[in-house]
């Protein structure tokens, strides 16, 4: 690819140890993908598939019981999993920023907007006084907040959900990041605000050339926002492809099922719903984790874990079906 790779995740494994290590949950089990500047990767999957854990592993902020037990995260030529907390802190908020899901809770109710937006610039760029105020005002204008010099003196509870998510967006940009991870930023917004917010992210990406990981379970958004899509199931990356290929020719049965369960305008077909329920990550089924719910399940799926197959159109899928297709053609 002409553009250089901003982030290269190779075989990332993150496990949770609870009850003194007796119970191990393999939340992320060998995830690999690459992200280039200006590119948007959609990370899709049901809740509990490991999407958020992957993001947290990248920035090194796992919950108490979480541990990265394998793989590497290369970012700007360094493996983040090797770095200490002190070093990671200089990267978080400055080189990598995160936008969280719930705008109502992401902002500290007791601090003014100015203070919360200014903090990354204050701590990372060491801006003070007038230059800091100007920086904050420019950020707020970038996220299209009207009359920023007034609004920045107000408090979070004086703003709507949409406005707050834009503030969170401004905070993300404050450090001048190369990579922004947006963890379902629009789930809590109502539809009209959602569309505005997505356009905003698109504009910002275009202006700053920042790489974007967009975590969602809404395939409609993926179609609109993302260049590439990665589908996760039970901690594994089951399929990864450019947006067009994924929607036109989904390779993995789970991806097909996801697309099938998306209501299309005007179509009368019954919605497809995947039978069974998501697997227990502490005791995954043998072989391919999806096999108990897979409509095209084969005996092989039950015993042998599939490996990645590259059918050649830029997509990668981890399913034995592809193995047959390849050999047949």
């Amino acid at each position, binding site marked *: 690819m002409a553009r250089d790779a901003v982030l290269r995740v190779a075989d990332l494994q993150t496990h949770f140890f609870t009850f003194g290590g007796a119970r191990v949950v393999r939340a992320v089990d060998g995830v690999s993908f690459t992200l280039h500047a200006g590119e948007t990767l959609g990370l899709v999957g049901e809740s509990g598939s490991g999407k958020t854990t992957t993001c947290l592993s990248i920035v090194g902020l796992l919950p108490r019981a979480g541990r990265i037990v394998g793989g590497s995260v290369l970012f700007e030529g360094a493996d983040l999993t090797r770095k200490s907390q002190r070093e990671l802190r*200089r990267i978080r*908020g400055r080189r990598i920023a995160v936008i969280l899901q719930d705008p109502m809770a*992401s902002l500290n*109710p007791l*601090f003014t907007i100015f203070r919360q937006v200014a*903090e990354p610039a204050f*701590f990372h760029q060491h801006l003070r006084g007038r230059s800091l105020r100007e920086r904050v005002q420019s950020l707020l204008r970038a996220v299209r907040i009207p009359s920023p010099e007034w609004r920045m003196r107000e408090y979070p509870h004086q703003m709507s959900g949409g406005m707050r998510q834009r503030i969170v967006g401004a905070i993300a940009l*404050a450090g001048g990041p190369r990579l922004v991870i947006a963890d379902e930023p629009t789930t809590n917004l109502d539809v009209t605000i959602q569309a505005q917010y997505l356009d905003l992210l698109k504009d910002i990406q275009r202006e700053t050339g920042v790489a974007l990981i967009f975590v969602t379970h809404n395939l409609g958004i993926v179609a609109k926002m993302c260049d590439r899509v990665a589908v996760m199931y039970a901690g594994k990356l089951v399929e990864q492809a450019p947006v067009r290929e994924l929607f036109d020719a989904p390779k993995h049965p789970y991806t097909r099922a996801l697309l099938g369960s998306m209501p299309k305008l005007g179509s009368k077909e019954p919605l497809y719903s995947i039978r069974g329920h998501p697997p227990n990550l502490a005791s995954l089924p043998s072989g391919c984790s999806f096999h108990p719910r897979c409509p095209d399940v084969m005996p092989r799926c039950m015993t042998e874990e599939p490996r990645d197959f590259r059918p050649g159109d830029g997509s990668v899928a981890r399913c034995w079906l592809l193995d047959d297709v390849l050999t047949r053609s």
Partner: protein
Amino acid sequence: MSQFIIRRILYSVVTLFILSATIFLIVRLTGDPVALMAEASARPEDLERIRHQWGLDRSWPVQYATFMQNALTGELGKSFNYRLPVSELYFQRLPNSLTLGLAATLISLLIGIPAGIISAVKVNTAWDNVAKGVALLGLSIPGFWLGLVLILVFSVWLRWLPTSGSGDWRHVVMPALALGWYFAASMLRLTRSSMLEVLGSEYIKLARLKGLPDFVVIAMHAFKNALIPVFTLAGVNMVVMVNAAVIIEVIFAWPGIGRLLYEGIFQRDFPLVQGVVIMAGFMIIGINLFVDVLYAFIDPRIRLSR
């Protein structure tokens, strides 16, 4: 804001009315003061003389009416025992009680809050367990036992501190510790749980994702939010410490309000008991108001909504 103030004043009036009625009634039911005031070889007519002298021969409603009437004008009646206006006695002792109350509150805050924060941040580690142990100890030792042990160790054996009485700062140390220790434990527990809740919140996660140093995240973001319930408890504790420190005051011969009330009750000094309890009522209202104003100062959401 004015609507808020009017409502608070109305509340205070009702609270004071209930308080004054209750204490007026209960004190009179504890017995007849004249029996205690008259000398061993008094005769019935002596009792009548004393009863008349203090207006105790009038019916209760009449006595209550005059009591409330005077109370409104700030005159709380004259103590049987001290023959001094109750307000004068009260304000003579108030500084001592406030010193002790503040010192004990300070101790409870200085021990309770930091320990609470540490045990919240380092939850389920050795620190947390030590803090929880200290909290349990605090809640299970009666104040007077701790007081006497302190006197025995620091005053009689080590001779560092004076045993009792009031004077310079050295007199306050032990009583404040004996009084504050119990409240430090409850402060610790509340701070810990309040901090745990705040540290689990999204905005703390975002603050960390901003790459802010741990100190800023905990001390600025988390602590300020955790402070609100802590202040409520501190406010209530403060009132209790000033007015109900009778046991510590008796042990350390501290000239506070608690002792004044304690002696007043046993000697059936009606005006004194009523006056001190009413003033305690005022103090509660004052501190509740102060805490509410503090809320508005800390939490912008409250400031605008009232």
